[in-house]
């Protein structure tokens, strides 16, 4: 009988974060990069909830709500930026963004 312990959840969160980071590095499409940020934020949420269960406190779950709101705000502003970039250069690739280069 194998018992599912806290370590397993933390390992899953670490794997999820690594996949998100890898996608952030290898993809050029700004939309996909935003999805990878969502993956990383969700892995952090999983860590918070695991800690909440492990220590028997509710604060971990409250932190998840704050992360959720910050993620929603970030997605709204980020997607607006992507749309306005797309209007200008009709592509969402981040490699073409050179206007802020010194």
């Amino acid at each position, binding site marked *: *009988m*194998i018992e*599912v312990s*806290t370590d*397993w*959840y933390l390992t*899953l969160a*670490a*794997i*999820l974060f*690594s*996949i998100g980071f*890898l*996608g952030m*590095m*290898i*993809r*050029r*499409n700004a*939309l*996909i990069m935003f*999805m*990878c940020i969502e*993956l990383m934020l*969700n892995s952090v*949420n*999983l860590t918070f*909830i695991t800690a*909440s*269960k*492990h*220590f*028997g*406190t*509710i*604060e971990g*779950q*409250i932190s*998840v709500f704050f992360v*959720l*709101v910050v*993620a*929603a*705000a*970030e*997605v*709204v*502003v980020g*997607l*607006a*930026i*992507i*749309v*306005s970039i*797309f*209007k200008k250069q009709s*592509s*969402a*690739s981040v*490699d073409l963004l050179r206007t802020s280069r010194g």
Partner: protein
Amino acid sequence: MLELLLFAVPAGLVILGALIVIFAKNPVHNSMGLVLTLASLAIIYITLNATFVAMVQMLVYAGAVMTLFLFVIMMIGVDKPEQTREEIKGQTLLVSGTLFILIGLVSYVVVNSGFNWDLYFPAVEYSLEGTPDLIAASLFTEWVLPFEIISILLIVATAAAIALAYDTKVRKPK
């Protein structure tokens, strides 16, 4: 056995969805992979006794945020192929290799450090159900100031999104 199954199946789906997100070519497939990941995470949250957070995860993430993503995908077109020319030679391979070496190194150090995690951070015996009333009792008393500040953040984000996406040319009267 049921406990193991309830962890293993959603965990596998979480990783599968995450891999779809980073490797699929069509942006719609990417977003569907993200939905799979978020829904499976909600199942894991339920097994971790965070029922209210699981519901909010489904409503806000899998519902609202993914709808927003799909709106933008449809708006800017899904038929454009991604530009895959590498600015630095072999950057994809370089990044993946570095990442895996780093993860392997950290895991090796953590496993072999001999640090007794259970002694310093013992797990509690009782289990806390994350019901709405329990969360609200803490959120609206102890955490009420961050809660109010986060509402300002939401308003600022809404105003910023409108200001960024507002097209002055379209609004001109003919």
